[in-house]
């Protein structure tokens, strides 16, 4: 029997595709090129949404992990696991897009800047989370361990951020937060943010359904 979440998959997929297509059109075709940076600035329409979705995903890992330890309901664990995978994916995309932008703009793929470094550490923490899940054989124990790492990792984010910020900063401060962005560029950015949030929701629903089936399969195998 399909679960409640699986019925959401198709509408979410359609909405995400439509939003992504119009977002690409608005960002790559409609929006004017940046006055200073030129065409390469268009990477922002990918880079900013992916990083925001990645942070959202790690926050959802934290929520799912806390709720799992609290209630011991399997679906919270499935949510945290699914969101961690997506968080890692979107963080990797963010770093890749940022590097492609950084090479022509800063003259280097990578710099040891505060935000870049924080993002790279996040990628490592949550990759560790996924590897731990794979390494623990007992599913119940794996869920508990992962939940602890999911909570600790999230608490570590502000400390990591503060420490690397003091350490050094080159990245431009967030234009969004400063309100220093032209409406002609802002609209495509917001559209793309909505599109990537929908893409995240679609993939999350899909991945949770898969997680539910995996858990079901494990249970049936154990019963045999």
């Amino acid at each position, binding site marked *: 029997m399909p679960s409640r979440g699986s019925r959401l998959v198709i509408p979410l997929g359609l909405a995400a595709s439509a939003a992504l297509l119009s977002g690409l059109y608005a960002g790559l075709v409609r929006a004017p090129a940046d006055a200073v940076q030129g065409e390469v600035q268009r990477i922002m329409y990918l880079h900013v949404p992916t990083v925001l979705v990645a942070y959202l995903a790690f926050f959802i890992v934290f929520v799912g992990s806390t709720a799992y330890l609290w209630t011991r309901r399997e679906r919270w664990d499935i949510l945290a696991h699914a969101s961690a995978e997506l968080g890692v994916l979107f963080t990797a995309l963010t770093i890749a897009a940022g590097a492609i932008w950084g090479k022509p703009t800063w003259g280097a793929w990578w710099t040891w800047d505060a935000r870049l470094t924080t993002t790279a550490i996040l990628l490592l923490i949550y990759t*560790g989370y996924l590897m*731990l899940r794979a390494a623990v054989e007992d599913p119940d124990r794996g869920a*508990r361990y992962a939940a*602890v790492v999911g909570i*600790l990792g999230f608490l*570590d984010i502000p400390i990591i951020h503060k*420490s690397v910020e*003091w350490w050094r900063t080159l990245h431009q401060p967030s234009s969004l937060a400063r309100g220093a962005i032209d409406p002609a560029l802002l609209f495509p950015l917001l559209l793309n943010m909505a599109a990537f949030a929908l893409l995240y929701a679609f993939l999350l629903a899909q991945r949770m359904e898969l997680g539910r089936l995996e858990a079901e399969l494990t249970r049936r195998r154990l019963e045999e």
Partner: protein
Amino acid sequence: MSLGQVWAIARKDLLTEGRSKETLNGLFFFAALVLLVFGFALGPDRARLEQAAAGVLWVGFILTGVLGLTRAFQVERENECLEGLLLYPGDRGALYLGKLLGNVVFMLGLEAAVFPCFAFFYNMPLWGALPGLLLTAALGTAGFAAVGTLFAAMTMHLRAREVMFPLLLLPFVVPVLLAAVKGTEAFLRGAGRAEAFPWLALLALFDLVFVTVSLFALEWIVEE
């Protein structure tokens, strides 16, 4: 949870280690070796070595910690000792704090022995800076031991524990590494307390957050 219980566990671990000196000797040579290996890797240029010294010292401490921190729970694997420990009156919080205290005292003893080697190979003025260096070492060691002790409990049953433990631990303790290196550098240069203080405060915050959270988290890790 009482201080007596915490101390009883820490004392037991330190006594066992003190009598066998199994890991202590090995890890001391390992830490000294790290200092030497970095000396070879960086070349004989004295100015360059002095510049890199604080970083090398802390990489040495943390790598030694990666090898040493798992010991606290590894010794409990034999003969089901952990189950025995859990049967004693007293809660998991006391077990965590006891193991943590044992680990911190053990690592600090080791670090105290490494400092003279460091001063010798890297030509560092140790005497004047010693109180500041020891304070930084204590705060930094408490930080990586707080997370390390918890992750040691988590990975003790895994087949891939030798790989999983550093994979989980190292990204988490990046803030500790940054802050401890900066603090150590400030004291070595004789830059005064004002420059080192923010880093020491960051270390204290890290210690506070992760000791508190781990205290509760051990409950979910050693459940069976």
